[in-house]
């Protein structure tokens, strides 16, 4: 599973992506965020702000109850600020 980070999430973590293999019980985005939080202090700092974080699965915006699969590309980011 590929995880991509943008904006201040990337800045805090110091990485723009990582490949992970969460256990099978990590079925949706909410659970994945809680699982990722435990990976490091930096991860904890990022995912504590979960209310400010948006998410996509395979480049589709999703809500945090959405199911995830092993080969998904999942991205975490703040609200968009284009234009």
């Amino acid at each position, binding site marked *: 599973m590929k995880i991509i980070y*943008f*904006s201040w999430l990337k800045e805090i973590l110091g990485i723009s992506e990582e490949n992970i293999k969460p256990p099978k019980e990590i079925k949706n985005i909410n659970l994945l965020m809680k699982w990722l939080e435990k990976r490091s202090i930096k991860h904890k700092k990022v995912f504590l702000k979960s209310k400010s974080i948006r998410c996509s699965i395979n480049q589709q915006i999703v809500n945090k109850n959405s199911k995830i699969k092993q080969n998904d590309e999942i991205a975490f*980011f703040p*609200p*968009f600020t*284009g*234009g």
Partner: protein
Amino acid sequence: MLIKKGIGAVVNFTGIARPANNSGNIEHLEIEHYAGMTEKKIKEVEKYALKKWLLNTCIIIHRYGKIKPGENIVYVGTAAKHRKNAFKACEYIIDYLKVRAPFWKIEKIKNKKIFVKSKKEDEKKIKKSF
């Protein structure tokens, strides 16, 4: 081409990097984007606008990377038979790019990085994705 397509109205929007905000003078903007998804989202809104407002043509350009104050950030051009449709489509697309396309602005002010926050008023305008 204009004649062939029966175009009666062309609306162009250009968004320009401003030199300052409340925190001070901006040295430059850094625009991050989600490669792949960006292109997909821009194509989606283009397709939607062409159909909804019966556009003859629609051009959307959004820069990313380093942008200095005074430089163009984004361009939206729409052409339609009637002006109302060209205006509505152009405004919709730029509203969409603000809140539904995966871009993030960072302002560099005195060597500090400021992650620009999205405006709630902008988010409300485009209530749902299509």
